[in-house]
Structure formats: C-alpha cells, structure tokens
C-alpha cells in the first residue's frame, strides 16, 4: 500500500514570497491533516479536512495560510506572503476517518525562509 506522498521535499524562498505544498493521502482515507513542525518541537495541527470539507482550522494563520482539498483527495497548502518564522517542516497526514484512528504521515516538506 502506498503511503502519503508530499512534494516538494525541500523549498527555500525569500520572505514575502509565496509557496505551495502538495499532498496525496493514502487511498481511501477520508481525513487529511496538515501539521507544522518547528525544529525541536512536536507537530502542530494547522488544518483538518474530512473529505473536502474543513473540520478544524482554528490554528491556521488565515491572513497568510490557505489550504484546499478539491474532490476530497489530494490537498494543497499555500503560504502568501511567507515570514521568517514560517521556516519549518510541513507534514501531511491521513486517516481512515474521524475518531481514534491512527494518522499516517508523509515525509514532509522542509521550508526555509530567508
């Protein structure tokens, strides 16, 4: 079974530029999550989708971050404009459905903002 796919793996941009990350979850997984992991910290949830609807985006900085999940499959997370403090690893995860189901993570995208 293929795992969660993410691209790109690495991205370096200057502050105030925009960037987009892509995620393709495990086939059949209805729930998709985007996490931000700053060096030395655990992942922090940014947004959660159930199929193509948003379940929780309370920790998403909506003035600069946006995300969509068209057709309930793959998803895109965008940052515009980027700030230095956005330097982090952006992880995508998926699970079968809501509930105490284990979440499976992709390899992440390491973003460096200079």
């Amino acid at each position, binding site marked *: 079974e293929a795992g969660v796919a993410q691209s790109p793996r690495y991205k370096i941009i200057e502050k105030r530029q925009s960037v987009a990350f892509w995620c393709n979850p495990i086939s059949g997984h209805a729930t998709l999550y985007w996490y931000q992991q700053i060096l030395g910290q655990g992942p922090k949830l940014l947004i959660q989708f159930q199929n193509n609807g948003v379940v929780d985006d309370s920790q998403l900085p909506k003035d600069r971050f946006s995300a969509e999940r068209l057709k309930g499959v793959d998803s895109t997370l965008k940052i515009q404009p980027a700030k230095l403090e956005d330097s982090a690893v952006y992880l995508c995860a998926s699970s079968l459905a*809501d509930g105490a189901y284990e979440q499976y993570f992709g390899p992440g995208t390491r973003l460096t903002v200079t």
Partner: protein
Amino acid sequence: EDQVTQSPEALRLQEGESSSLNCSYTVSGLRGLFWYRQDPGKGPEFLFTLYSAGEEKEKERLKATLTKKESFLHITAPKPEDSATYLCAVQDRAGSYQLTFGKGTKLSVIP
C-alpha cells in the same frame, strides 16, 4: 487546553540497556494516546494507540503502557536501529480529532 510533556528530552543508552520514556498528559477526556517514532528527515511513523488506563501494547522491543495521567514507552534490550525521536500525542474527546503532540524524546543507542 490539552498538554503533553515528555521526559527526558534526550536519552543515551548502551546497546542492551533497557529504559523507559515518559509522557505526562492533561486532557479533559482522553479518546486515545498515540506513540510515534520519527527518524531524521522523515515523517512520524505510527507505533501504538492506547485507549484506557491499564492498557498495554507491545511491538518487538517496545512496550507502551497507560495510566490516567501518563504513559510509558519501555524499551527492552535496545539496538542501535532503535535510535530515533519518540513522540507522544493525545486526542481529546472534545472538539475535533486533532492530535496534541509533546516535544519528543531523542533516543540514542550506542553499540
């Protein structure tokens, strides 16, 4: 607000030297407690889910246990390939199904 505290921050063991990692948590109502392993440059890899106090789960040299306030990840006779950061996360019964993670314990097993 849910909180997860992991200790120690880092642990250095000789190969074969058993030890335990601690995860203390505060939630209004626990739906599940999750353990993940994270290798450098990779995403977290799922290990265990525990649902209620007294529950235990095992996988190879790892055993996870749960009480009402904390969870332990016991590592028996570790090998160098067990070196990684181990993350603990809780899922609250209230609200969405997000995971709240601790900062992790970085385990190094020396041959």
